């Protein structure tokens, strides 16, 4: 059913008329078979987004379903009044810090996995895969205990650490797959020219990894930006809240002001949707390249 429409419909070979005829009839997917289900699904995807935007920009008391006239009143309420301006900064700090930590640590480990043969390599790899089954939600209690001991409760660092640890395994495996796809000969040529191993990595490997780093970094950022439970449990001071926690408290009060809820939602959505718009095309290609597949 797939890929067939791109193939030119060549004239049937005279000696095999029957299969050729069936092929011509069977392979074409007509336009409405694509556009009808796609259109329905798009409706399901986009109506909720549209609903949020309309409620965010329309004036108080209006019941219009068109986002016009536009008012910024709700955004002012959430940004200044409800503290989303501060939450936004907190989320951004945690997101960028986990992005950097995850990428750097995963890069080092991924390079070791891809380029070295060492004792315990397979065990390390299996351990990384096993962590995918560790439930983040169920680690709340022990992690809270650890952060309390380290006096990191109410510190954004607790979130950076928790995010990084949970993002690391998959990022590391992805990056090692990408590094493995870069021919070793390129690095060897640099060594012959007198580069140190580290310098060869910086000059030769790193530039080629840029798309992979964009993908892994974006994953880390999006996950961190979206995380709710860790932020809810480890940070109890309002000036340290992140966006999802702020948003959750707005939902608790939605009967009071749903314009603010919608505006808060837009504030929460814009960064990740922008990041996603940039990486989504690359996402499918990267996964296709075989980095995650069995």
């Amino acid at each position, binding site marked *: *059913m797939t*890929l067939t429409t791109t193939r030119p419909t060549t004239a049937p070979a005279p000696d095999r008329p029957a299969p050729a005829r*069936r092929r011509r009839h*069977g*392979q074409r997917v007509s336009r409405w078979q*694509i556009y009808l*289900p*796609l259109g329905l*699904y*798009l409706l399901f995807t986009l*109506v*909720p987004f549209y*609903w949020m935007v309309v*409620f965010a920009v329309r004036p108080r008391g209006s019941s219009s*379903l068109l986002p016009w006239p536009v008012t910024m009143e709700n955004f002012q309420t959430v940004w200044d009044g409800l503290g989303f301006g501060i939450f936004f900064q907190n989320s951004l700090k945690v997101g960028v810090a986990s992005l950097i930590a995850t990428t750097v640590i995963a890069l*080092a*480990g991924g390079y*070791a996995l*891809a*380029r*070295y043969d*060492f004792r315990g390599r397979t065990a390390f*790899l299996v351990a990384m895969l096993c962590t995918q*089954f*560790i*439930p983040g*939600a*169920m*680690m*709340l*209690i*022990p992690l809270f*205990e*650890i952060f309390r001991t380290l006096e990191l409760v109410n510190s954004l660092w607790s979130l950076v650490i928790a995010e990084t*640890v949970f993002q*690391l395994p998959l990022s*590391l495996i992805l990056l*090692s797959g990408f590094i493995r796809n870069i021919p*070793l000969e390129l690095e*060897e040529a640099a060594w012959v020219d007198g580069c140190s191993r580290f310098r060869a990595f910086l000059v030769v490997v790193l530039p080629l990894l840029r798309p992979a780093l964009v993908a892994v970094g974006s994953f880390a950022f999006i996950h961190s930006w*979206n995380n*709710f*439970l860790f932020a809810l*449990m480890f940070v109890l001071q309002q000036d340290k809240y992140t966006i*999802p926690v702020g*948003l959750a408290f707005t939902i608790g009060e939605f009967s009071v002001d*749903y314009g603010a809820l*919608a505006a808060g*939602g837009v504030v929460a*959505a814009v960064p*990740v*949707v922008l990041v996603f*718009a940039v990486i*989504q*095309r690359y996402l*499918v290609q990267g*996964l*296709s390249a075989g980095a995650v*597949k*069995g």
Partner: protein
Amino acid sequence: MAVAEVIPRRRRRSRRRGSTTPYLLIAPAVLAMLGFLVYPMASVFYYSLQHYNVNKPWDNGFAGLDNFQRMLTADPLFWQSLGFTAKWVLVEVTLQLLLGLGLALIVNETFVGRAFARALVFSPWAVSGVLTTGIWVLLYNPTTGLSRYLADLGLMGYGAAPLANPDTVFGAAVLAELWRGVPFFAILLLADLQTIPRDLYEAASVDGASRIRRFVHVTLPHLKDAIILSTLLRAVWEFNNVDLLYTLTGGGPAHQTTTLPLYVAATAAQSHDFGYGAALTTAGFLVLTFFSVLYLRLSRFGART
């Protein structure tokens, strides 16, 4: 994500065995995971055998299997939440897989506006559970939601509140989670669809296979491992996913939509009974591991067909 995939196939002539460099390179990752994944996991097992309640420190101490006994015999909410978790995971994963596969097949076709359509239908993947709740609360609310505008048109009565009604709350939560869950399958399966060699379809067509037969005999076998892996990852993820239900229904009405992790989170956050929470966590972890292994065995993951 097979192990073999990551192990380099070719010779490793530059890699000296016995060098310390690789250990230095993996050290940060190993230390981070030992400190913040392995140690906490071990401490969960330890606390599950302890009485440990921040509110009742005088009772703290070794508990033996008390917590587990209480869980299995004296806590109907444990069984109820476990049952609901199973129902939630099964329904979500099945529907997400079917819709995601359909969506992947559609956007794998060639048509005008494909790149744009892909970007749009995949976009809820990046949205958080809390934001999903925020959006769907607006859609479900009787005064701001779709139902009000449908009622204005005379299509239904006023005052429908799907989240407050015990009969509709499950469906309402499932739909909201589907909205952001389907793109995960669509993205993964599309990536795998693109690796199917065209010759296979050519050969099948030449042999006179209809489109449905080609789907069953070429597409599905090729997607098998991707489907097994994505359903497993998603099942684990849905099992552990707390954000949406915590904010959308709060586990209610009357604990009807409380999953096991949600129950754990509530136990930890509200009653501060960490010992009992750890026992619940241990139970959840065992259940999850058992079913994951069972699933991989039964589905013969990685077996060549």
